[in-house]
């Protein structure tokens, strides 16, 4: 990190996004309050230029919703997203188009994000021309380059999304996002369906784009091995909030939050002789519909004290670049 300039590329301020649950007629008649899934429940975060920031956290904690809200695919309930000094909500049409090109996302679910009626060559062609990345003449060469980059044969360009394997579709999503020379890339579980060898190739590709094009990456992954390998900083999310943020070294070697500690302890070994179970987190996963009062981790925390069930902790800076939302670290 130290060798990278610390200019803020994206500033996220107190972002909220919730999804209302459908109400039944009985709910209405009985005047039960309407409920909502609080997917993003107040996130503030600075993402620096040219860094890889990893976002990790339990399934369903709100990572994809957060990502989609950052790039305006979901309208935030409240909060601001400042990209290169400008509030995304107040851009005019032309600037919005540029911002849209500059912020790309590799979607967790590649198939639903691809048009089933378009061959992948045509799809890439359209992207390239729409964003004026290259001329019509150069497009074919560029498409071949892109396919090669993600390790697909160039004779696959004529095929339709349904004619690919799961991991190949994921790589098509990667090629599409990279086609338009983004500045900021959100990779939502972008290598989760790939075998280790191809994972390594894609990660090397991202690293080299970072060096050559100054790419900034928000890397969402549940694979703590891969995160350790690629990230400069790590943000840990729990039930809609970021509860720990630090450099990769800090988070992996001296985690602060009890949740992060448990997460790192539960890393599986690859040795088949150690079938013994990893220590899972105690207690039931609370729901983002009813977020516990006080500290949101209190219901499962091994060190919870009485006040943890009542007071929500702030986000305390414990060391340089290392912060955590736990009462234990109150300054």
């Amino acid at each position, binding site marked *: 990190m130290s060798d990278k300039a610390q200019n803020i590329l994206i500033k996220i301020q107190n972002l909220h996004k919730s999804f209302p649950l459908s109400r039944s007629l009985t709910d209405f008649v009985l005047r039960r309050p309407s409920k909502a899934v609080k997917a993003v429940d107040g996130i503030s975060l600075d993402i620096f230029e040219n860094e890889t920031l990893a976002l990790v956290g339990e399934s369903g904690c709100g990572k994809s919703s957060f990502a989609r809200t950052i790039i305006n695919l979901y309208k935030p309930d409240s909060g601001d997203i400042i990209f290169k000094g400008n509030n995304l909500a107040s851009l005019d049409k032309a600037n919005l188009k540029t911002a849209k090109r500059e912020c790309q996302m590799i979607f967790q679910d590649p198939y639903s994000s691809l048009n089933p009626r378009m061959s992948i060559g045509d799809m890439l062609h359209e992207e390239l021309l729409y964003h004026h990345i290259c001329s019509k003449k150069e497009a074919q060469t560029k498409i071949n380059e892109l396919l090669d980059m993600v390790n697909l044969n160039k004779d696959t360009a004529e095929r339709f999304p349904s004619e*690919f*394997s*799961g991991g190949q579709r994921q790589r098509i999503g990667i090629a599409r996002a990279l086609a338009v020379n983004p500045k900021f890339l959100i990779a939502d579980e972008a290598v989760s369906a790939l*075998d*280790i*060898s191809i994972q390594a190739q894609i990660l090397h590709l991202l690293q080299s784009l970072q060096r050559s094009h100054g790419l900034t990456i928000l890397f969402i992954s549940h694979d703590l091995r891969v995160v350790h390998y690629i990230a400069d900083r790590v943000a840990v999310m729990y039930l809609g909030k970021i509860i720990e943020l630090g450099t990769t070294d800090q988070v992996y070697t001296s985690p602060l939050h009890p949740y992060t500690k448990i997460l790192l302890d539960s890393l599986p070994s*690859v040795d*088949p002789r150690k079938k013994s179970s990893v220590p899972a987190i105690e207690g039931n996963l609370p*729901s983002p519909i009813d977020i516990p009062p006080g500290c949101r981790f209190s219901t499962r925390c091994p060190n919870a004290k009485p006040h943890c069930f009542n007071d929500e902790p702030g986000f305390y800076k414990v060391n340089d670049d290392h912060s955590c939302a736990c009462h234990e670290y109150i300054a």
Partner: protein
Amino acid sequence: MNTAKDTILKVDNLKLQFSSNGQTLNALNGISFSIRRGETFGFVGESGCGKSTTSRAILRLLADNAKITDGTIYYNETDLLKLSEKDLRKIRGKEIGMIFQDPMTALNPVLTIRKQIFEQLRDTKLSSKEKEIVAIEIMNKVGIPLPEKRLNEYIFQYSGGMRQRAMIAITLAGNPKLLIADEPTTALDVTIQDQIIKLLNHVKEDFGVSILLITHDLGVVGRMCDRVAVMYAGYIVEMADTYTLFSAPRHPYTKGLMDALPKLPQEQTRNEEMKPIPGALPSLSDLPQGCPFVSRCQLHQTLCQDQLPTMQEISPGHFARCHYFHKLEGCTGLINCTKG
């Protein structure tokens, strides 16, 4: 052909082609393996090598442009490839259940999750109250919080990992005897992955369900599989019990795959770098006449260019498809087995 009593599934010399844009893609080139009753059999291999196609062929849930050109698939005494569509429907879901790799396309977008679980329970004599209890219990088992509420929702309202778990819940509700699980944990974090692995191991050990597990996660293979097959370009290139494969890989592709795994701070023994295997899978429309791995193999000689190696049994139960497997003697994979 009869299958041995302890075998639940036997696939023999399965060949399958896709036709696409006037090209013929040789996706499966003579796949043979069998799964014993109560065993978990794993499939690993490079993205695009044919794992999902093999599993879809078993239930004949193939794309329109796919054609099985050779081979047999026996489920117990039944040749699945000869079965009528009507009889096959009796097998799907109840005898052989499948957790698909892509829940978004496999699940019904306009039915609530509850309806889809109930659908699996239609032939049981349960009352709707009991079905509700079963549905809630099974959603709890896959770790979906507040199931009473969440059963009312549709698949698009779920997160990636929740979709995968809903897929698992719906498949398990059918109570299959053979479970095909295609990358069931790719979208899951370690703690929930752990819960799912325990659930599947429990289903296997306590209900005698056999499992065909497709995964690229070698950690999951280690915790679940009794035996493993490694696939490459539509061929099985190595097959052994998990311990043998992890400690003594004898195909250069398997070895390369294991070398690519990055290490964690607490693992001093692993390599620092993630080393991809250089090169790419050959085009399925233009497979080399010799070994499919030849262009990427460090051991290759002229023989490899000319002649497809056969599967050789190099020690009891350990097969490899390599002319020069003995050059890997002494090589260890993910685990060091000097202690034996």
